[in-house]
């Protein structure tokens, strides 16, 4: 049918049309504030972060240690058996060198988000965080990294209690 149709609907505007008042428009902003209940799993995760510990949880049935910790194993649908404190070291599973912030501001020095497989968790089980103290061009998948924590007094029970992960010096 596209062969038979000459004209498709859809009127394209450019930013100038808005600036010049050629078309009518308005703005609005959602005042959407939330206080999400943290529950047992994530509540404990946040409390551990405040103490400088990355917490996982262990499913005996699936023989898995996962992070962030949850109370339910999504694979066998049984309750998780125990919390497991993990190390604050790990391996870079993957990463990016990002030159754009979340609200699309261009930046000169890239942010380096990564998935870090945490030592003590099952293989391919990691968390997303940032890498720092590293030359962006030196970052490699498979690189070993360690968490750089905020000082105890500044920790709030948040994923941001870890400032970033930095490479572990090879001995």
């Amino acid at each position, binding site marked *: 049918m596209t062969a038979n149709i000459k004209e498709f609907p859809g009127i394209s505007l450019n930013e100038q049309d808005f600036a010049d008042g050629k078309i009518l428009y308005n703005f609005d902003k959602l005042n*959407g504030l939330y206080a*999400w209940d943290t*529950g047992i799993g994530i509540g404990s995760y946040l409390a551990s972060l405040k103490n400088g510990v990355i917490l996982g949880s262990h499913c005996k049935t699936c023989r898995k240690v996962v992070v962030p910790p949850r109370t339910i194993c999504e694979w066998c649908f049984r309750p998780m058996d125990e919390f497991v404190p993990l190390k604050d070291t790990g391996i870079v599973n993957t990463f990016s060198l990002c030159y754009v912030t979340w609200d699309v501001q261009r930046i000169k020095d890239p942010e380096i988000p990564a998935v870090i497989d945490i030592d003590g968790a099952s293989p391919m089980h990691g968390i997303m965080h940032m890498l720092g103290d590293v030359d962006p061009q030196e970052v490699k998948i498979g690189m070993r990294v360690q968490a750089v924590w905020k000082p105890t007094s500044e920790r709030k029970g948040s994923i941001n209690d870890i400032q970033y992960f930095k490479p572990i010096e090879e001995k």
Partner: protein
Amino acid sequence: MQERVAIVGVGCTGFRSITPESSYKEMVYEAATRAYTDAGVDPRRDVESFVTVAEDFHEGTSIFDEYTPDQIGGALKPVHTITGDGLHGIATAYMLIRTGQFDIVAVEGHSKASNIKTLPEVTAYAQDPVLNRPLKLNSHFIAGLEMNRFLFETGTSHEHCAAVVVKNRYNALNNPVAPYGADLNLEDVLSGSMLSWPLGIRETAEHADGAILMVLASEDKATYLTDKPIWILGAGWNNDSAALENRDWAHAIYAEEAARMAYRQAGINNPLEAIDIAEVDDTYAYKELQALEALGFCREGEAGILTVEGFTSPDSGLPVNVSGGSLGMGNLLEANGLARAYEIVLQLRGEAGVRQVEDVNIGLAQSWRGVPSSSGAVLILAN
């Protein structure tokens, strides 16, 4: 194609004004575990597809369906979300099973309304952004407009609406999971402050947190799994105009049309004769009366009188909202219809405890999506 579909398991958790002990995932898991135990199924092995109902802005997360599979046993399975009421979810599972491709499907809905700090503003963001939102009005005004026109056209009185509150909150006293049970009189209700006149604050259901999961199965599986399958005789859903400017302000057209569809499937010509018990939307008290008329249980203008006369009380002609309805159990956002259907399932199984109604064989559940929507669904169940 499979013709017959039954509800074979139900589970819930809640319902309370706050649930700080668990995250939404943990709360849903509780309801899910109960439902799967009730149905005697293992979700990882037996459940072939999953339907969840949710709205992004109620969760505070965009693309919320990302977070739905894990706590219902749906990881790496055919899961999808309907941005509708729980009864839309049940209708969806009903269709999935009828295709013949799935034998067992689970439906989940929940509310963490207590986690939304700015719920009125979130609700207002559903208004038309150009025509209505610039007026910056709390969305209860829509219910106020609707109630006023409904009273005007049908001759229903404010007392009639208050009688719904008295009945439903009293019924809730007999429902162990209902948080808002109370023994009130008409004066207690009418003396509350106004929200949007003629709508009073006590005629508006408080929100609650909670989760409900139901397991549906094809005929073969249902009869294998349980001695008490609750059959779906009909499911209907519909909506009037989305625009406030084009809709019928007095009548619940969406309920009328949804019921027509469900009755046609169920072969019901005279609903009052056929249906033994009903759970209908009462998130605002007048909605129950409006719904009873739209569902064809009585003529226009009669629902209020029947309520005052006790015709819709638990031991009378047509027990309505024996569970306490939303006024008694709380407004559960997308899970409202599931709460209505949950009660019908318990009643049809004979498991409703002290509030068990005698001789019930066919029940109806009905829901509405809340302001500013004009959409809802109807489900007809039988034992």
